[in-house]
């Protein structure tokens, strides 16, 4: 097969961090290639380069060579990419929400009643009737019979994904189709429709490059799999010689983050949480690269998704201490991703992990803390007392760090000193002089801040340096120090190691363990990255559709976690659509762009 796309030596830096490092591979005409990798491995960046996303060019462009059909490309804008025959189906969707499906389908390729010369082409009268008809036909090919005149925002998420897919594949000059998580928000039936359509496209000679976190799907669909890790190509596998285990190992590397031994008190085992909704599950101890325990091996199913055999809980029963934070049948009602009958009890002194696939609940969990006016039903209890997120007492006791630390957890223009001490000063009455006036006691604050900087290894030019200038890792350290400085009862952190270098990652996770060990602080880590959770958390709650569906114990490893996150897909079948967070979010945020990068 002749080569369609040839990438050689592709590199991209965001400021100081390298998103992609000397990536090279090629794609043949009619070939389907899957791009796999952990969060932050560079796969989204690669797609964005190929599609000409503006952030790429605005942050220093890329180095290397991209050759399509023998022609080297410069790809400075989405138009360049479209003209070259490359089009992309975005994870966050590029449909215009207020326009109708028909208008979206034909945007920039409108069907018009007049044909003015090229310079005046934008004055052509758009033929709505023709677009309606043709649009309905195009959508019908994918089995959609929804009205083409409805504003796209009123279509359900799976339909929107299909509309965008229909739009891209119907481009006459399409040579290379890029797909970013094409089926993450689709149920079984719709996924199959899309995958079939992809195969048909490929059969006609279009090259397809897609990013997916669903390893099983990648194996089923792709001819070859390119695995990225930390910006490098960790391996290129063909369908025959790849299985999930190999791929996972390539994605995460053989040396998993050394599990920090921690003693969370009390010694917690997963067990009944006080809510009847959750079936207790336990993993029978460590599954590691060293092999499986004999009795578990017999029950293990290899192939499409490892399943966790249900084994009766062993070990101590959970201590009867009342949960420090409890969610009882919490259901939120936002237009985006929601929690649904969410039950969770955070035990005092534990490190609890909360995770899910994109759009399945972890985002809702995070937003529950950060958005005050989220309508919800159910009960939230703090140390037994019913509270709402808006209560000042809640905020005193539950410190929250969202996944966007630059936006939510830091005052970027202010100094390290001010960031470290502000909450304690403004809200907890520290660092004050002149009694009732409450003026800032700079000397005492500086002492405290200097100690914090030393203790946590925050690298900064001085205490007066604006936090904006620190690296991502150091900013995160300041944010954590600030939150910990309030001595909260519970510390809830979301995506704590996003955009953070490897050393700081380890430091942060060890820091959490230390806080937990020495101060008995209860910590909840909400993250989509297995590395944040495995080996650190005593329990990991895996969410699906806004509910806790699995509770993993301390012994779970990456593979088990990934398997648990992907579970129930078969069970879902033709079930209802998932939360529109996947595909509904803000397009401007490029995963891989400075905020999110290490």
């Amino acid at each position, binding site marked *: 097969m002749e080569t369609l796309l040839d990438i050689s030596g592709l590199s991209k830096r965001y400021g100081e961090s390298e998103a992609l490092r000397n990536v090279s591979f090629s794609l043949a005409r009619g070939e389907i290639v899957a791009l796999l990798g952990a969060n932050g491995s560079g796969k989204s960046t690669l797609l964005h380069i190929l*599609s000409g*996303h*503006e952030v790429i060019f605005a942050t220093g462009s890329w180095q290397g060579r991209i050759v399509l059909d023998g022609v080297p490309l410069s790809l400075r*804008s*989405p*138009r360049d990419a*479209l003209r070259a025959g490359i089009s*992309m189906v*975005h994870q966050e*969707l*590029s449909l*215009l*929400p*207020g*326009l*109708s499906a028909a*208008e979206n389908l034909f*945007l*920039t390729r*409108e069907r*018009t009643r007049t044909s003015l010369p090229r310079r005046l*082409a*934008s*004055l*052509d*009268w*758009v033929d709505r009737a023709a677009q*309606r008809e043709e649009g309905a036909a195009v959508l019908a090919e994918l*089995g*959609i*019979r*929804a*009205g*083409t*005149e*409805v*504003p796209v*925002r*009123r*279509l*359900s998420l*799976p*339909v*929107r994904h299909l509309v965008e897919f229909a739009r891209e594949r119907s481009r006459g000059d399409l040579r290379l189709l890029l797909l970013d998580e094409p089926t993450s928000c689709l149920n079984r*039936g*719709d996924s199959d429709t899309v995958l079939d359509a992809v195969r048909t496209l490929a059969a006609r000679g279009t090259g397809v490059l897609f990013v997916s976190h669903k390893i099983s799907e990648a194996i089923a669909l792709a001819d070859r799999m390119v695995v990225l890790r930390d910006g490098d190509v960790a391996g290129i596998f063909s369908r025959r010689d790849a299985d999930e285990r190999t791929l996972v190992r390539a994605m995460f590397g053989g040396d998993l983050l050394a599990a920090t031994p921690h003693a969370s008190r009390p010694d917690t085992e997963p067990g009944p949480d006080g809510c009847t909704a959750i079936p207790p599950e336990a993993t029978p101890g460590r599954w590691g690269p060293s092999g499986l325990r004999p009795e578990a091996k017999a029950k293990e199913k290899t192939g499409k998704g490892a399943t966790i055999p249900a084994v009766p809980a062993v070990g101590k029963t959970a201590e009867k201490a009342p949960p420090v934070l409890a969610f009882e049948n919490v259901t939120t*009602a*936002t*237009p*985006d991703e929601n929690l649904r009958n969410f039950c969770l009890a955070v035990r005092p002194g534990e490190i609890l992990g909360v995770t899910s696939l994109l759009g399945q609940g972890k985002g809702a969990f995070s937003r529950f803390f950060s958005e005050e006016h989220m309508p919800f039903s159910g009960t939230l209890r703090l140390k037994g007392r019913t509270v709402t997120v808006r209560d000042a007492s809640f905020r005193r006791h539950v410190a929250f760090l969202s996944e966007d630390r630059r936006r939510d957890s830091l005052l970027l223009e202010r100094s390290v000193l001010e960031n470290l001490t502000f909450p304690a000063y403004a809200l907890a009455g520290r660092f004050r002089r002149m009694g009732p006036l409450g003026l800032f006691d700079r000397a005492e604050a500086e002492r405290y801040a200097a100690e914090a900087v030393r203790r946590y290894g925050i690298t900064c030019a001085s205490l007066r340096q604006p936090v904006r200038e620190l690296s991502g890792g150091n900013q995160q350290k300041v944010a954590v120090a600030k939150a910990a400085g309030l001595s909260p009862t519970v510390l809830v952190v979301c995506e704590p190691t996003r955009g953070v270098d490897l050393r700081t990652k380890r430091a942060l996770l060890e820091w959490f363990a230390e806080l937990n060990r020495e101060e008995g602080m209860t910590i909840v880590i909400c993250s989509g990255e297995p590395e944040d959770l495995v080996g650190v958390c005593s329990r990991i709650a895996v969410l699906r559709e806004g509910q806790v569906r699995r509770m993993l114990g301390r012994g779970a490893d990456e593979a088990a976690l990934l398997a648990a996150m992907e579970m129930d897909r078969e069970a879902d079948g*033709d079930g*209802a*659509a998932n939360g*529109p967070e996947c*595909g*509904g*979010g*803000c*397009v*401007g945020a490029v995963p891989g762009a400075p905020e999110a990068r290490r």
Partner: protein
Amino acid sequence: MPFFGDRPAGGPPPAVSVSERGASEGNGGAHGGGNAGARAGGSAAGRAGAWLATHPMPLLFLVLCAVGIRLAGLSLPFVAEEVLTRLCRDTVLALALILPITAGMGLNFALPVGAMAAQGGLLIATCAGLSGDAAVGTALAVALPLSALLGALIGMVLNRVKGREMIVSIVIGLLGSNLYQLLCLGVPGRLIAVANPSVLLSKGSGLRNSVDLEFFRHILRDVGHVTVGGVSFSLGSLMVVFLFAAAVHWLLRSRFGLHARAVADDRDRAALCGIVPDRVRLQAMVLSTVLGACGQLIYIQDLSILNVYTGHLLSDIFAAAALLAGGATLRSATVGQAVLGVLLFHTLFVVSPMAGQNTLSNAAIGEYCRSFIAYGVIALAILLNRRKEGMSA
């Protein structure tokens, strides 16, 4: 009339999922609430009534107009004639605001800049001592390109302040006005000799406060002047207004209009689709300013007197208030809304002073009321304009 009106606020979108394969939303689907009733046939009056019921702003203005006409005690033919005159005079200025709204830039309060370009053209023709067709030709030849150029400049500035276009356009309008007035005071007769000294102030430099334009007087209004049932109006003027309205409507339904709506909807996503948002916005601004110049030319020919220093002031406010009175919002505006709004708003404008005089023996009160209504309508539109969040319902 297409209404891109209001969406139901909050709540999950009604699921039109693939699994409901049988169900069809039907084409021309449910745009905005409540149209179903209006569409259910019935007499024209019935449908108009139903339409009004779902469009509070025009309804409110209709009521106010009715009250005002009653209080003012003016005869209907008189009011009708006044209103038709103002329709011809002020519609194009209201039309000029439609495109920036469509492109997501809100109300173009820099419209006076276009008006100033028009006045500049007329003044240059007058100062040069021209008359007749030569004067008209010169005025147009200056005003239109100048307004296009200024529109481009304004567009470039507004592209740099995304999200704050309205307040910045206000400042641009004010600054432009000051500069224009400075030029009118400081240039003619002092820095540049004028062939026609009668336009100057008595001290010999700087333009007079108002200039009578012989060559421009009623050039449209006199075309096709007819009287029907005691009401006289100009077919020529109506024709011209109709042409402009048709042109704007065409623009809205063209590729440009679609791309403008896309840019207004979500700028980043529009860029991903291959549209260049800054260019679309710039074009919208240029068109708006040029239409503003045309509108001001029409206005002045009808008025036949040019108030040099104040003629352009408030043109943006009245145009905006009229457009909003017709039911437009900061997010969408149509030609029909502009026409309706001009009718309603300017009727109110005409009757207010007399209404005030008759009820409270104070015409000023009537004027205060109409000022309040004009600014209030705009303030209300700004307050009601809620920002959408991504793809939420």
